[in-house]
């Protein structure tokens, strides 16, 4: 990713790195700031978790449970999702289609 005429002098490496970083430095700093904020919070939280590994390691299938949940508790979001997909379809086709005539 370094510049094309790579010169392997120390100065040359520093210059190339600098040129690469210059437009990205703000993004990096902001991303690191964000990461730091999140990580500090994540590591200083006592997350609740189960005491032991779930039993029955062989049969870890969640499919049935998920299916039941989708059609009981989360039937409303499921239905809304149907409308979402329909409108995404419509919107995407409308936007992507070329000239009518």
């Amino acid at each position, binding site marked *: 990713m370094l510049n094309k005429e790579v010169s392997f002098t120390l100065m040359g490496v520093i210059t190339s790195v600098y040129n690469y970083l210059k437009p990205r430095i703000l993004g990096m700093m902001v991303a690191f700031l964000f990461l730091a904020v999140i990580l500090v*919070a994540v590591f*200083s939280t006592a*997350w*609740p978790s189960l005491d032991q590994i779930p039993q029955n390691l062989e049969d870890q299938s969640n499919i049935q449970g998920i299916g039941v949940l989708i059609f009981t508790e989360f039937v409303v*979001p499921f239905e809304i999702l149907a409308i*979402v997909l329909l*409108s995404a379809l419509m*919107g995407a086709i409308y936007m992507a289609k070329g000239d009518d005539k």
Partner: protein
Amino acid sequence: MDLMLFAPEITLVLTGLAVLLIGLFLPTGSKNILGYLASLGILIALLFTVSSLGTQATAFYGTVSIDALSQFFKIVFLVVALLFAISGIKYTEGNSHTEEFFTLGIFATIGMMFVASANDLVVLFVAFELASLATYALAGFEKKNPRSLEAAMKYFIIGSLSAALLLFGISYIYGATGTTSIPAIAANMDVLVSSPMGLVAVVLLIAGFGFKIALVPFHMWAPDTYQGAPSVVSALLAAGSKKMGIVAAFKVFIVALIALQAEWQIAFAILAVITMTYGNIVALNQTSVKRMLAYSSLAQAGYISMAFVVLTPMALGGGILYALSHGFMKAGAFIATAAVVYMVLSENKDSTDPDHIDNFRGLGKRMPVTALSMTIFVFALAGIPLTAGYISKFVLFSSTIQAGFVWLAVIAILNSAISLYYYAKVVKYMYFLPTNSEKISEPLPYTIALIIAVIGVLVIGFWSEPFIYWSMEAAKVLLIPGGI
């Protein structure tokens, strides 16, 4: 379970599908009828909602609840959608994609309505995305117009970013509480309260909702999108989808995350002050009326956010009432702009900025009804008495003072004094600056939509008691667990 509880939503879904299907078989020339059909459907949904006022129920395993708050906001959304559909009749005239326009608008409204009645973060997030996705395409509806496309692109990218932030925040809340149900979250706040994660989650959620509400600094898309998108769509965005962010924030922060009150009150105090000041100051020298309205809409979002800071029943009621009033005022103002844009484009097809304030010169003579309505809307936005804007501001600001946040009220009052400058500028252009152009006949659908909005603004302004009572009832839902 009584399906009648969902009659408005079901009506809307059916209307949307009907519009889409019928539209496929109609020739371009007769697609006008779709707009009437959509308006009719929305009107029926509105009647269903109004007739079910006062019901109180939860459905679908407690994921959806119907109460005074959700019904209040549903009516806001439906009224805005109605204005959108009526004015859309004129806007889509001669367009071969009318059915997409109305169906997307109706679907977006369904999303907003489900956000208002969501009692579970999954429902809330999915419905939130429905409203977003449908409006992304609407913002870019004029796909030959680079401004409209740019508006859609910016809206989409910042929207996706905020959806990701929102989902990220929700994931932490889910992790810490083990549930997504709003009342259950409120009962399991121990982990979040005792760790810095609470604050991070709150801010991530504010970023997610603040995108819709257009709070500084999550507002960056709003001026560009409101300006670039078709005016009718801007009306839907500013008046409808913004309220969706507000009601979502009400539900999540005040009901679910009340234990983190200290954190988000400070956050909202900071954002409210920055937002209203920034919005008002930047609006001062805008030349595009739509952009000016967008910044004014920022300022209004700042005022509404004061309700989160004050958090008394009266302030919340004021904020909710403000949402209704703002729905009428902002939708009306954008539709009036749409009428002007229509006028400019019908005179000069290639006009690049048809909403430039110069096009408002002498509007009082050229389009008297539009100009008069616009005057009422901007005066209402500025908070001149006898309008909805005044009553809402009065309730909100006086409750702020009552709760002891005098500094906040002072900032807000100073801000609304500044705002008068740019509102008066529009009136000056419309009535006091001469024009050489002729009077033109005003398009009927726009006029009807404007008159409905004017009636709304004035009725709330004159006969405010029931509206205040009603919004206070809605506010009670937030503060008293389990409703009234």
